[in-house]
């Protein structure tokens, strides 16, 4: 469409709109209701934790980069927790076996039958 054609169409539309009259009565408080709806649409939605979580899970998490980062972080956390727990357990068992070795050899500590 050429710019001249669009200008002519806008002009004719403006004329039609200026001539248009409606005799239908408006519902009561129509104007207030319209403004109320506009205000409600502009008001920021209340940001509850659940809303944030839903937004994150539904909107952000499926993004590939974020999904990969999320998986990598959780796997790293799981690995680190497993390693730390195993290390603590191994240290505990080793200490216990060392004590047991000495107890077995010490007549004052040796378990009696």
């Amino acid at each position, binding site marked *: 469409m050429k710019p001249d054609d669009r200008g002519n169409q806008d002009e004719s539309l403006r004329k039609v709109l200026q001539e248009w009259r409606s005799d239908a009565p408006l519902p009561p408080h129509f104007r207030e209701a319209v403004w109320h709806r506009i205000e409600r649409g502009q008001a920021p939605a209340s940001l509850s934790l659940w809303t944030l979580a839903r937004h994150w899970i539904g909107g952000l998490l499926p993004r590939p980069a974020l999904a990969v980062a999320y998986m990598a972080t959780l796997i790293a956390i799981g690995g680190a927790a497993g*390693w730390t727990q195993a290390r603590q357990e*191994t240290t505990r068992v080793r200490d216990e076996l060392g004590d047991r070795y000495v107890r077995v050899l010490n*007549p*004052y500590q*040796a378990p009696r039958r």
Partner: protein
Amino acid sequence: MKKGLIILMLGLVAAAATYGCIYFVCSSSARNMQASERPELTWLRDEFKLTDAEFKRVSDLHAAYLPQCRERCVQIDQQSVQLQKLLAVSTNVTPEIERSLAETSRLRAECQAMMLRHFFQVSQAMPQDQGRRYLAWVKEKAFAPNFDMPEK
């Protein structure tokens, strides 16, 4: 939302699986030690990095020492019972109590000398540096001020 939930659950499952795998692998040495026939000797072998030949010598010394240790245990128990009997019927330190206390001290000194001899023999069956480390560790453990206090 559904795709996000699937990724969320996958992440949690992957974290739990990684935790389990790493824990299982990294704690396997401790589990193997505990499951062995003589856990304390298996620990000794691992801790002081003994070869098969060294471990056999140490195990033989250990096996030879245990009957002596058990014999001392019986003597200690008998001596303890005797002393308790004397203490139960006495209101003063009688010559019998003094003799019993002296016997208790003699037994303790013998036990300590016997243990120390065994520790030296074991340390000599190890490589020199490990033997020194073993002696330092075992002396601290067995001759700590509360060494004859049974652990709670």
